[in-house]
């Protein structure tokens, strides 16, 4: 027992003794350790080499906005194929008798980014296209359809100027006007989106029930304006594609019935009934496939770096991080400096920004990109060609390079169209920049490559070299 008491008291003393609050006033170098962290700021002009441009990443059928324009030598038109429309409606809930739908009219839901303020007298023309459009369709394939009279033409400026936000004669309505006017904002996702509901009457409704038993609408949109004829339509990828509501009657033995005059009995004893009592007032069809067809001037490759455009182009930069930095230093800040050429190949006037992402493996054109927004370099937003050196913050990216020295240090530089929808609910990104869209712009920027020694891309690093701790 005495030994146990001895051991217990010694262990208790040991725990009691492990407390300290050591602090001292400092006067360097007399009362400071010999080594302390020192921040080094250096330009690494030769850090980037073997940089190149590759093309063909985001193609028109995958982009989030459909850029349609008729300026800068580009003629771009959207094409949309909508989902099938049900051609018949059940007349009775007891048996399976159906009657053919007779379309009365339809309303198109059109959503696009708020146009440039310099745009004047903006008009959207809707053309009926064949059901056979797909990703291989070209503008030349559709020349005859676009040469036909349009299904509808809407003057966007006139409609937006309506004080009641409704054209009472034609029946068009402005649901959102793309401003932050709280009366017209449906959600955070529509803060910058113009939403129009356009009426197409029975005489024009492109419904062909005899067409192989299918009913599907395909539309092309052409933009015209007195100035800046450009608009960015929403696409199915972002949930902002074209939609249509078909208003109809049901033919019952030669008698046209309104949907709300057809009653369904409740098939079970649930109260209220879980099934609809009537057929829907309108039949909804949404975007099945959308893209855009265009003619644009060719941009032959040169010794510089091109980013942007459609199909999108990316610049692959291979970064030689100095061994002393990557192996044993800590990065405080890293910046990439890109110097633009005096003129850009294509400038659409839309808002663009530059992303820099690392790649999982450097396979040149086919390098798989790491799109993790947490370690992504992002520039500020540009409208047109940057007039000064573009500085892109790469600190998280370089910290990742230092943390894992096995990953390749190649990065893709991409030009993105600014997605103006706010994504706070899902991402915490209050600006929505992290969800900007590649390939959704014809804007193409050109930067000097490492082959132009005077203006080559440069890495600026602020880092703290490892110091020798512990040596007295």
């Amino acid at each position, binding site marked *: 027992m*005495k*030994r146990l*008491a*001895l*051991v217990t*008291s*010694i262990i208790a*003393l*040991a725990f*009691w*003794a*492990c*407390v*300290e*609050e*050591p*602090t*001292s*006033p*400092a*006067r*360097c*170098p*007399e*009362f*400071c*350790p*010999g*080594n*302390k*962290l020192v*921040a080094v*700021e250096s330009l690494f002009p030769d850090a980037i080499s073997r940089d190149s441009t590759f093309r063909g990443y985001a193609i028109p059928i995958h982009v989030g906005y459909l850029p349609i324009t008729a300026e800068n030598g580009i003629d771009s038109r959207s094409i949309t194929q909508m989902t099938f429309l049900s051609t018949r409606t059940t007349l009775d809930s007891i048996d399976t008798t159906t009657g053919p739908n007779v379309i009365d009219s339809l309303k198109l839901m059109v959503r696009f980014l708020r146009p440039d303020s310099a745009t004047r007298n903006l008009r959207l023309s809707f053309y009926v296209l064949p059901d056979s459009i797909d990703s291989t369709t070209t503008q030349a394939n559709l020349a005859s359809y676009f040469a036909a009279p349009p299904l509808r033409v809407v003057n966007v400026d006139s409609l937006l100027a309506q004080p009641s936000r409704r054209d009472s004669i034609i029946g068009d309505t402005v649901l959102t006007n793309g401003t932050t006017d709280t009366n017209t904002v449906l959600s955070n996702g529509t803060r910058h989106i113009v939403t129009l509901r356009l009426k197409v009457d029975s005489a024009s409704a492109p419904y062909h029930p005899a067409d192989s038993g299918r009913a599907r609408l395909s539309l092309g949109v052409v933009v015209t304006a007195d100035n800046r004829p450009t608009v960015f339509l929403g696409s199915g990828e972002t949930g902002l594609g074209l939609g249509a509501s078909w208003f109809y009657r049901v033919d019952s033995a030669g008698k046209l019935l309104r949907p709300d005059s057809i009653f369904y009995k409740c098939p079970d004893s649930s109260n209220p009934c879980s099934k609809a009592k009537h057929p829907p007032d309108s039949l909804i069809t949404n975007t099945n496939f959308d893209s855009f067809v265009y003619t644009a001037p060719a941009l032959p490759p040169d010794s510089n770096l091109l980013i942007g455009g459609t199909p999108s182009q990316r610049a692959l930069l291979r970064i030689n991080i100095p061994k002393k930095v990557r192996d044993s230093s*800590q990065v*405080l*800040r890293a910046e990439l400096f890109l110097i633009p050429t005096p003129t850009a190949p294509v400038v659409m006037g839309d808002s663009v920004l530059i992303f820099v992402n690392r790649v999982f493996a450097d396979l040149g054109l086919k390098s798989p990109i790491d799109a993790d927004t947490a370690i992504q370099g992002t520039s500020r937003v540009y409208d047109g060609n940057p007039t000064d050196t573009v500085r892109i913050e790469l*600190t998280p990216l370089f*910290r990742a390079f230092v943390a894992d020295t096995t990953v390749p240090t190649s990065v893709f530089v991409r030009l993105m169209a600014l997605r103006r929808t706010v994504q706070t609910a899902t991402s915490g990104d209050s600006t929505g920049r992290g969800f900007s869209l590649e390939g959704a712009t014809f804007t193409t920027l050109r930067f000097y490559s490492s082959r132009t020694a005077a203006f080559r891309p440069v890495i600026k690093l*602020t880092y*703290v070299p*490892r*110091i*020798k*701790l*512990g*040596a*007295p």
Partner: protein
Amino acid sequence: MVTRRGLVLALGLVGTARLLAAQSSPFGINGLGVPGRPESARSRATGGAFAMFDPFSGLMETAITANDRLSANAVGAVSYVTDELDGVSASRRTTRFPLFQVSGPAWAGVVIGGGFSSYLDRSYRVTLTDTIVLGGSQQQVTDVLSSDGGVSDLRVVAAKQFGPLTLGAGFHFLSGSSRLLAARSFTDTSTYQGVSQTDEVAYRGTGMSASAMLALGRSIHIAGFARSDTHLRTELNGVEVARNDLPTVYGAGVYLHLTPLAALAGSVIRSNWSVSTDSNAFNTTVWSVGGEFGSGRHPLRIGVRGGQLPFGPGTAAPKEFALSAGTGIVFAQGRGIIDIALERQRRTGSGLTETLWTGLFGVTVRP
């Protein structure tokens, strides 16, 4: 047999507690650290003057022959420290467990013992605020430089009495580690993220010591010792990053048992710490005088101590002066002893004045 098992158990405990080190001081930042004092609470109460003759201090081997049975002693210390430098004052508190010793008779009149004590303390924490230029603009930075740890002296000793002469020898194994931190944070956290570097270094070293004590009658004892340590090897991840010579230490003392109620002692210890580093290291001489008065159950102890510290900036060694007092309580027929000491220290050098109030609590068990 029971005594030997107890000795082995106690020596095992020495190994578990060796990471606990001693007090810290800014004077040791640019040197190897602040040397520890292998003195029991009883010896500290006499300014360290009794350490050469105290079986529970780790200074001399010969003193353990006073233990005629297994005995163990542990010391806890709490220091309240105030530093004044350039008109700036800072206070701190350190709590330590600087000493554990155990000894007892083995065979043929040989007494063996062991324990640990603090050899060097390398704990400090310095906070600096500065402004540097980054990206063409001034950035305010805060640096934190800290070390937490030290070097412990693990010793195994043996001594034997030959009539009036007692001889002893010991082997010392120096071991320890320090957790080092260098961190820099920026006021502008949106542009610059903070950085830090942490390392843990290990220390290794060995030493030998020998001592002798001569009894001149019953009331006068004269003692002397010498100790030589090899090198202090500093290793980072198993790679030696520094090697520093360690000093040779020698000293002498006298103990006078004047009356049954009064005893006096004095000692002088010399160390050539100047061999350890190229600069900021000095040889030191430390003296102490103290006495113990009153009954053996509740004595009054007082002492005074002076000397130098081995490390510090400037051309002269920092000076140290201390006054101390204490008492003790013996209970359970002498099987348990509790010693209490209070020490007031003052260290000065290069504009820094360090004032310490240290309370020590010693427990001795003799089962």
